[in-house]
């Protein structure tokens, strides 16, 4: 509304400039949180080491271009038009490993996912990234563990023997395992790495290493269920 007059649409008196700015800032916060399906802004996030974050974002971009080349139309830059022009929001989620119990030759890695995203999206693809500084000739065993519904133990959902030919990154498709987290109250993917005798530790020496393991998941908002009245 022009200054000192009424809004022709809603009849509300024009706000004083300060009050108008506060109202718009409140609207911006509400709008962004609603679109991100967040009940409130996340509290005190633990920033990841910058080197690890940049390495992972670079890998994310490479995976995105590989996916686009392999499955044209599967991922697009920007929202995907859904039915009747409704745009389906896409997410790329980057989860860094939290190290769990370990022995000299094996380690448990935990990758957490937020309920908001897992619960409201369909996982299109998820890839585990592992870095090997000095691989040996024998394969590494990677087990994906499922929490046991009845107790604290975990069952092996899948086991893969990974051939590592040379130092560097290797990847493993964990899409099915991440999809299976749907419905869990605290969605968490657990991976067990077991390396042969003559290898070094399965993990970099410290958490801030830029070669820290991570999972990249690509997800798309679920289509809302539409009820058709007959």
């Amino acid at each position, binding site marked *: 509304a*022009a200054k000192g007059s009424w809004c*022709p*649409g809603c009849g509300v008196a024009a706000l004083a400039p300060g009050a108008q700015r506060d109202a*718009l*800032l409140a*609207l*911006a*916060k509400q*709008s*962004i949180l609603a*679109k*991100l399906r*967040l009940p409130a*802004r*996340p*509290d*005190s*996030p*633990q*920033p*990841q080491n910058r080197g690890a*974050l940049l390495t*992972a*974002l670079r890998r*994310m971009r490479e995976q995105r271009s590989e996916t686009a080349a392999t499955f044209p139309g599967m991922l697009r*830059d*920007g*929202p995907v038009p859904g039915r009747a022009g409704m*745009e389906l*929001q*896409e*997410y*790329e*989620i*980057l*989860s*860094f490993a939290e190290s769990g119990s370990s022995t000299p030759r094996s380690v448990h890695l935990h990758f*957490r*996912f*937020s309920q*908001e*995203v897992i619960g409201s999206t369909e996982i299109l693809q998820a890839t585990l990234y592992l870095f090997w500084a000095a691989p040996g000739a024998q394969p590494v065993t990677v087990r994906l563990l499922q929490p046991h519904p009845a107790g604290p133990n975990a069952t092996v959902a899948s086991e893969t023997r990974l051939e590592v030919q040379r130092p560097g990154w290797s990847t493993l498709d964990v899409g099915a395992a991440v999809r299976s987290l749907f419905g869990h109250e605290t969605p968490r993917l657990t991976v067990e790495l077991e390396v042969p005798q003559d290898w070094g530790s399965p993990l970099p020496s410290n958490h801030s290493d830029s070669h820290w393991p991570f999972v990249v998941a690509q997800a798309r908002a679920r289509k809302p269920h539409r009820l058709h009245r007959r």
Partner: protein
Amino acid sequence: GVDCGADSRMCCRQEFFVDFKEIGWEDWIIQPEGYHMNYCSGLCPLHMAGIPGLAASFHTAVLNRIKAASAAAAVDSCCVPTQRRPLSLLYYDRDSNIVKTDIPDMIVDSCGCT
């Protein structure tokens, strides 16, 4: 579309930038630094209805004459966004994962009258 000036009365795009640091969100939103929450405001008298939806042509001129002639009996149209684009965000979720997403139709690029 028209960007609003200091004394714009007609339908225009009002720029409004939300600085995430100003609202204390810079710790969980990694990029960008703020959000252009532009909005549309201003009057849409009858002779502006449909602009810029219609090409500036003879038909537009005739249509405007008809609308102006019947202005007494008609109501104004609305000033709404005519072009929008996504807001790309990189942020920490509550598990300190990094999430990248494009929220559709969040940034108004231009406004017009319905």
